[in-house]
């Protein structure tokens, strides 16, 4: 017997009799003999719960988590505070052991939570509609680019080199298979070079993807870019950090047509890179080109308010190869977590997280550049991340910091070979003055 398998020998016997089979093997007679494995799988012996816990603790303690390290690393995955209730509520098994809400009468919990998530993503971005989530920020970017291609019937997209390097890579992997050209536009002093962008624009450009705050944490001025993009009848796709929207203008205010981003920082643990969630919001005009699930409000036969998956004619289970995307499972639980986080932080809390991150990041830059050993790489307004440069190799800085249990910055040279000895540091509301001072102190003597 195994704890997850309830069949007693007597049950099995009765069931086989009822089927009219002699043995379990009879039920597998349809598998040709030459295809049978006929040996035991080569796997470790089964573990009891105690053995499993002990094994997993050994593995997990072979890692050094940000519980032990002071984290100044960001670059697309962020160490923001997660209120206790987020996990308690998301881990209610009525939510996490349910399937996709295809039977709406018994899925109103999931459906309503997604409806509330969609509402808050719209309020955050200023857009008209949001879907129920994408796999992550990078694949949301791919889907946004495809929306632009489909709706403009053009075959190229422009992406700024200040967009997260992994997002650009994922975009290129996908577009190669769709015969869509991806053109990168250079940067100037850490922001998208709008003059170069202007020179690139033509009848073939479906959309332009700008990250804001960009990969270097800098807030891009999109006034000129918006004009250039829309005069060319292309779509403006804005990739944003949802926490930044606590203080920074919503993308709709600067004319974005599609807003996407990585939603991890909305209450999701870092989890060594996943599962996270991508969000995608757009205008009413582009709604029917949107990929993925969408929840709508209706009522039941008694007139009671009820929620249901809607506009399903866009999706793969109905349209098959003509669907707007192949996405089926999305990030339901992560979207629920994001919704609980946004509600818990609320109007004032989200602003305070953004303000404290800004204040602390600016304090950190000030402390780190005080003596001139390090200087800011760019001179542009930034949110919670900034790049510094100095005479010491980034790798060396990071390994010295690690000796003091500090998780240092992202080494920019990996993706921008010209940016030598440069680190991208992130400071969230979780960092204290003492931790920042310690960082500056250690870095000063490297």
């Amino acid at each position, binding site marked *: 017997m195994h704890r997850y398998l309830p069949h007693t020998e007597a049950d099995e016997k009765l069931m086989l009799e009822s089927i009219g089979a002699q043995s379990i093997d009879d039920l597998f007679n349809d598998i040709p003999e030459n295809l049978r494995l006929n040996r035991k799988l080569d796997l470790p012996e*089964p573990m009891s719960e105690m053995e499993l*816990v002990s094994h997993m603790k050994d593995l*997990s303690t072979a890692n050094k988590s940000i519980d032990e390290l002071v984290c100044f690393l960001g670059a697309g995955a962020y160490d923001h505070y997660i209120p206790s209730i987020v996990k308690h509520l998301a881990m209610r098994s*009525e939510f996490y052991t349910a*399937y996709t809400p295809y039977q709406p009468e*018994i899925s109103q*919990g999931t459906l309503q939570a997604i409806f509330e998530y969609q509402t808050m993503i719209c309020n955050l971005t200023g857009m008209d509609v949001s879907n*129920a989530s994408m*796999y992550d920020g990078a694949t949301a970017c791919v889907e946004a680019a495809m929306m632009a291609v489909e709706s403009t019937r053009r075959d190229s997209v422009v992406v700024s080199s200040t967009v997260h390097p992994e997002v650009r890579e994922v975009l290129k992997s996908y577009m190669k298979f769709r015969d869509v050209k991806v053109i990168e536009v250079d940067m100037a002093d850490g922001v998208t070079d709008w003059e170069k962008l202007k020179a690139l624009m033509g009848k073939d450009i479906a959309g332009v993807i700008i990250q804001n705050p960009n990969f270097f944490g800098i807030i891009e001025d999109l006034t000129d870019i918006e004009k250039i993009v829309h005069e060319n009848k292309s779509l403006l796709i804005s990739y944003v950090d949802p926490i930044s929207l606590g203080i920074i203008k919503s993308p709709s205010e600067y004319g974005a047509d599609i807003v996407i981003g990585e939603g991890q920082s909305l209450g999701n643990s870092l*989890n060594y890179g996943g599962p996270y969630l991508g969000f995608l919001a757009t205008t009413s005009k582009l709604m029917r080109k949107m990929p993925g699930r969408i929840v709508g409000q209706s009522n039941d036969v008694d007139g009671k308010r009820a929620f249901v998956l809607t506009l399903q004619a866009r999706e793969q289970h109905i349209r098959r190869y003509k669907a707007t995307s192949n996405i089926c499972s999305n990030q339901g639980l992560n979207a629920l977590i994001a919704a609980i986080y946004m509600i818990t932080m609320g109007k004032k809390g989200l602003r305070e997280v953004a303000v404290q991150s800004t204040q602390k990041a600016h304090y950190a830059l000030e402390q780190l550049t005080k003596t001139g050993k390090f200087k800011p790489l760019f001179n542009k307004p930034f949110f919670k991340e900034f790049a510094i440069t100095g005479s010491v190799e980034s790798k060396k800085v990071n390994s010295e910091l690690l000796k003091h249990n500090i998780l240092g910055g992202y080494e920019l040279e990996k993706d921008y070979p010209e940016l030598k000895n440069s680190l991208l540091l992130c400071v969230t509301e979780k960092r204290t003055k003492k931790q920042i001072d310690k960082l500056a102190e250690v870095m000063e003597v490297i």
Partner: protein
Amino acid sequence: MKDYNKLIFEISKEGRIAYSLPPCDVDEKELNTLIPDSFLRSEDVDLPEVSEVDVVRHFTNISNKNYGVDTGFYPLGSCTMKYNPKINEDMANLSGFSNLHPYQPEDTVQGALELMYHLDQMLSEITGMERVSLQPAAGAHGELAGLMIIKAYHESRGDNKRNKIIVPDSAHGTNPASAAVAGFEIIEIESDKNGAVDLDKLKEVLNDEIAGLMLTNPSTLGLFEKNIKEIADLVHEAGGLLYYDGANTNAIMGIARPGDMGFDVIHLNLHKTFSTPHGGGGPGSGPIGVRKDLVKFLPVPVVEKQGDKYVLDYDRPESIGKIKSFYGHFGVAIKAYSYILSMGAEGLKKVSEKAVLNANYVMNKLKDHYYLPIDQVCKHEFVLGGLINKENNISTLDVAKRLLDYGYHPPTVYFPLIVSEAIMIEPTETESKETLDGFIDTMIKIAQEADENPELLKSAPHNTPVRRIDEAKAARNLILKWEKNK
């Protein structure tokens, strides 16, 4: 509390908060001296203002209007709604896993990399493939990555005209959709009367423009594709590759392996076969496995072992590239890894045996009351074609909705498309004989109700939090977010 009918926005009250943060301990400056006014918003984001108790009660109340595997029997065909062990959640929540930043130095994440490396090895052994990548986020994402590999394979041989993928008409909707996203043209072939691949029809469409064939085995009818070896030979002789949709792997673990059947590229759904929860629609995880000569095309990075050290290998010039940020759904992989360790080789084989036993038991008990189009031994699931007695025009939808009144999650309905009024039942192995008997009795009772009191079914459900929903209205009069005064 099923009558709770408030949106969080409707209980919001100006001034309330549900969070706490320590005071800012650095010298604060005027915000607009740090970030110019032109970049700042003039009003706070319109988010709810509620207390902590409000949030807790709200989500507890709406969760009560949901049905999960922990609530009861969930025989949703093709979705493998088995029990999701609690210990797996605890393991994924160990701080040494859940609090790792994806860009930490490799030296500080050796335990995580070791886990990924071993899971790759275990899944490779279970499926008979050479290597497995944990990158894809879900089944459909795995299909897409697998199809990208198939394309990369043909192109690497200078075979550039293979732009078509064959998909049987019984396939999951994601199969053709993924093939389209990977830039292929789709050739759909009709299944034979048993829902299997029609070899003659396959031969007709095979030529030098075919990149591959996508198949699940057991088929979506829950039947083992007996001619699989012949199908594989035909596709390979024509120069194509065979893709395995792993949605139905729960029937064959430790018994037969897709690699041995001749499949070249596969995906698995960790959120089906390997017990990780569905989360109300994700996160899933759709690892892909490949045969030896295709390993070089796997997405980057690949976890490798160099001496005693585990590393993330990006130096793979023929890779299809990156297909998502970071390294896949690590948090989900931990749960699947814990599950495999809990089961072991014997346990996984028992899983498939009991899954098949349960399906055949229910099938045999229901076939006198519901139409069974193909009466032969099934694997982990089977498909009925609605009620035998069609006199009262009771549809499969009516039967499904009536099941809700009796406290069951209905089976998958109207899929596969090749069976009219399809009811696809997958009990899974974690259900006891008592649970199955209860379900069987209820299904038979519903069949009797259909004869005696059809109206009861047509107007079902009667005692769910909400009753049948006007879906047409939802699509016509779109309300996709809450707005004040609307």
